[in-house]
């Protein structure tokens, strides 16, 4: 399949309530043409509701939705011309693989020869060439997933929606399909909106991620910026592991346990409000002797280590009583260097990885 055209999506002030529950709360979102955008959030956050609004299955209370220049908010689902991969795949059990993929083409009244050609092409695209006459219930989970994908792209929609398409697959296959979906997106180039609750999947696949909670977009950013510079505590906790320590402000300086913190260069400290220091376990390091570079130092005592194969986690009780953990790569040296429980430990954090967040009291 050739790289086709794609359309930008503009979502404006879309609200959907179920009784008193606000599934979507004045959501604004622009999806760029050809972009792979992921809606990431916990269950009940509204991410699936938003996808269903895009597909036309959920009618919002208000809002505007543009595919390109065209307003589609009131358009029936069968007239929207968007491809969709369902979480359940929704492959028609009374049709074989080829008939499933041909379904959208038959509805568009394409000539039979053209349909045959495009079905075969779509099967090749998802690496299922020759599977056309299989019955759906003869396929494995991964194969069904590919057929669902082939059916969603065979009519060359300019927008592709995916609702947790990999959640039913086992871990290895899921990771394999993540790569494949991403490659397919690069090849076909259609604007893709992908829903998942799996943060690693979102980080792996997306151009940008919209983190959703309580029907609102908490942050819209590239995977790297989301992880490195979360906008708030919710995003920091939802993506990756994180721990928080209270920070006080005094005369324009940020104090942790009364000692000033070194902050990233060029970043002025926040002006007011209670603050939190975000700690990622893999960004902490054990410090012995005098560090070669300037580091923020935390003093504590080792409180046990856990071996996890490729990595280890060391729990540390800080002098103030808070517990933090440190993750390191396993090797003979690092494992041998792990301190005994109760031994004093000094943890170091580089200034450029010292991220302060407003404490919203959650």
């Amino acid at each position, binding site marked *: 399949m050739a790289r086709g055209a794609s359309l930008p999506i503009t979502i404006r002030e879309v609200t959907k309530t179920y009784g008193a529950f606000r599934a979507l709360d004045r959501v604004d979102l622009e999806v760029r043409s050809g972009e792979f955008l992921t809606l990431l959030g916990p269950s009940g956050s509204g991410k699936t509701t938003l996808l269903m609004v895009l597909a036309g299955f959920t009618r919002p209370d208000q809002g505007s939705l543009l595919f390109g220049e065209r307003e589609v908010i009131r358009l029936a689902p*069968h*007239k929207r011309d968007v491809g969709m991969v*369902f979480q359940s795949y*929704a492959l028609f059990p009374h049709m074989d693989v080829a008939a499933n993929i041909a379904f959208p083409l038959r509805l568009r009244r394409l000539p039979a020869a053209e349909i045959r050609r495009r079905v075969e092409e779509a099967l090749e695209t998802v690496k299922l060439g020759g599977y056309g006459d299989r019955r759906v219930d003869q396929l494995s989970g991964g194969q069904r997933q590919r057929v669902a994908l082939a*059916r969603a792209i065979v009519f060359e929609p300019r927008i592709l929606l995916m609702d947790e398409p990999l959640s039913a697959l086992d871990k290895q296959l899921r990771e394999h399909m993540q790569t494949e979906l991403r490659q397919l997106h690069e090849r076909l180039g259609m604007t893709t909106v992908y829903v998942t609750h799996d943060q690693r999947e979102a980080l792996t696949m997306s151009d940008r991620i919209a983190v959703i909670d309580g029907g609102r977009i908490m942050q819209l950013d590239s995977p790297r910026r989301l992880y490195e510079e979360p906008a708030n505590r919710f995003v920091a906790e939802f993506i990756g592991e994180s721990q928080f320590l209270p920070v006080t402000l005094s005369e324009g300086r940020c104090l942790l346990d009364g000692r000033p913190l070194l902050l990233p260069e060029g970043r002025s400290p926040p002006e007011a409000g209670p603050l939190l220091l975000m700690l990622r376990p893999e960004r902490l390091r054990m410090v012995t002797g005098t560090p070669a570079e300037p580091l923020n130092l935390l003093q504590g005592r080792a409180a046990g280590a856990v071996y996890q194969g490729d990595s280890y986690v060391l729990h540390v009780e800080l002098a103030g009583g808070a517990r933090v953990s440190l993750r390191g790569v396993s090797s003979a040296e690092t494992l041998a260097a792990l301190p005994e429980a109760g031994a004093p430990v000094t943890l170091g954090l580089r200034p450029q990885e010292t991220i302060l967040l407003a404490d919203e009291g959650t």
Partner: protein
Amino acid sequence: MAAGAAALHGPALARDARRERARLFGLSLPAVLLVLVIMVVPVGWLFWLSFLADDGSLSLEHYRRIAQHPSYFRIFRTTFEVSLATTGICILLGYPLAYLLSQLPRRWAGLCLLAVLLPFWTSLLVRTYAWLVLLQRQGLINSWGMELGLWQEPLPLVHNMAGTLIGMVHIMLPFLVLPLYGSMRAIDRDYLKAAANLGAGPTRAFWLVFLPLSLPGLVAGATIVFILCLGFYVTPAILGGGRVIMVSMRIATDIELFFNWGAASALGVILLVLTLAFLYAASRLARLDRMLGGGAR
């Protein structure tokens, strides 16, 4: 310590397995006996009777008579016609009803199903006589219709084919609706969403996706209705007024009037064979359907 095979308990485990099978068989023995006593023995006895001539000798006399008399052929034809018509009308009425129920929220669907099932809790005889009251010349429907000036002469609604069909459809409808409703409920809504997403409007989504997926339930329900109709006695006897003669009624006359067990048994055997043949054909049809991938999963 004994070494080798004995220590692995192979023969003992096999013996345990045999004993367990025997115990399970023992548990099902009462049911097997019951079926034997109330099903196999009487049917076998009828079968035997149908081959006995009036003087007690073995003969095909009863079957010969049935084959030679055109009146018997007419009775079988009527039986199949009435059963087919009842099944057809049940499908026409029952499919939309089951569809409506399957689209309702479960709570409401439950209430409506209760209404569908309500007739089951009344005696068949009472329901049939109730139809007689409603449909007869001076019945509720005719007197109201004439009162309102919709028609001048009483319509012949009962003691004929029309009355028979009305009564039978009313009684048979739940047998169609229940399995059909079940199979429609089991159809994942995602299939219809997918159909819409791929470009099918509501009408085409129904014909191309919903109807094929509901077919197994429809075949099941229609088969039950048709087979029950084949042996139906009370309702056609009362509402048909002697003008609609079905096999079951002829069997009753043979026994009550002529005390001819042989003739009645022969009719019973033929009806049973025809029913089994139909059931076999229907199951082939259903399997064909499964082969095409039908079924709501």
